[in-house]
């Protein structure tokens, strides 16, 4: 590729991202792809297992749906989504004060053949569990995200053809 312009660098979203991204009016909405309605939820913890109360998480559905949630005073997030048909996962994108470059991870559905997803081949087996949700009730999937410390969540660096 004839790359002539270097990428604009990232900077942290800081603690006040809600002003721009979760405004009180004028909420950004995208239609969800058709599919079984599901709920995704969890808590974001820092490296000392303290809840991250000022984060924002976005779910990027493999069939082009999109939703976002800010974490609450307990670090909890919740998203209404639909079950993907073409992949055993949804992509998650996380920003907060203290996160310099956004973190990208995935939520895999436990009731799929997630073990054979190509991404798993690059991940030590002991860390697989950090990406696989648990199903508390029908249609509700929970995934806690740990930014560091014990059982740190797997985060990805998306590659590309370097040509």
């Amino acid at each position: 590729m004839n790359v002539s312009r270097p990428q604009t660098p990232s900077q942290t979203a800081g603690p006040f991202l809600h002003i721009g991204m979760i405004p009180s009016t004028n909420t950004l909405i995208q239609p969800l792809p058709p599919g079984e309605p599901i709920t995704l939820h969890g808590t974001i913890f820092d490296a000392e297992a303290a809840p991250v109360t000022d984060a924002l998480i976005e779910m990027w559905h493999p069939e082009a749906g999109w939703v976002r949630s800010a974490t609450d005073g307990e670090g909890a997030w919740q998203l209404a989504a639909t079950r993907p048909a073409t992949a055993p996962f949804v992509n998650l994108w996380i920003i907060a004060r203290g996160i310099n470059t956004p973190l990208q991870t995935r939520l895999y559905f436990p009731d799929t053949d997630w073990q054979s997803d190509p991404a798993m081949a690059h991940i030590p087996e002991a860390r697989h569990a950090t990406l696989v949700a648990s199903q508390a009730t029908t249609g509700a999937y929970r995934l806690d995200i740990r930014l560091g410390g014990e059982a740190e969540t797997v985060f990805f660096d998306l590659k590309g053809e370097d040509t």
Partner: protein
Amino acid sequence: MTPLDWTRHPPALTPGYFSSLTRSPREGLIPLDPTEAELTGPVFGTQDIGEMDADLIHNAASPDAMAIGPRILVHGRVLDETGRGVPDALLEIWQANAGGRYRHARDGYLAPLDPDFSGFGRVLTDEDGGYRFDTVMPGAYPFPNGPNAWRPAHIHFSVFGWAFAQRLVTQMYFEGDPMIRHCPIVATLPSAEAVDALTARYDPDHDRPMDARAFRFDIVLRGRRATPMET
């Protein structure tokens, strides 16, 4: 899609910026080959933009009132790495008021709120990737990071291109601001060139005379939009 260029983006752990200490993964990122899911994304459009979203001077003001502060306009283009404009890119922006205070429950800074300013904006790029919004110059503000740390004047940007892989969050600074070189968050950037890329230039050719000064800030998203002509 091109890889994320780590000579441009800050690493997770930057001890001089204290908040990164407990919010930085240490295991190393796992390389991931992009699938269709990462090369596509939601499509935003004019239906997502309110009439006043790109006018921060008026969009939270009482009738006949205006936000307080030096009047500026910020404009530029959203580009891909080959320099082609990215149309229909959605920009979400937020900033402090002219005194350096955010309209946010958790901002307890001494400086007063401006009843006519919220600091929220949103804009969609045109067919050439161009964008523009009107606002007031944000003030510098202190933040907890050792005995005395200040943010330079800045505007926060969240950018959607056409794919998950392009999602960007960043901050724009202003040319000539002496606070830039003292800021621990600016210092997370890996090079002087990276700082320079986030520094908007005063652009007198685009001033509105007797009204507002112009600042120019171009944004380059990773990758390149495919065209049928390419081999």
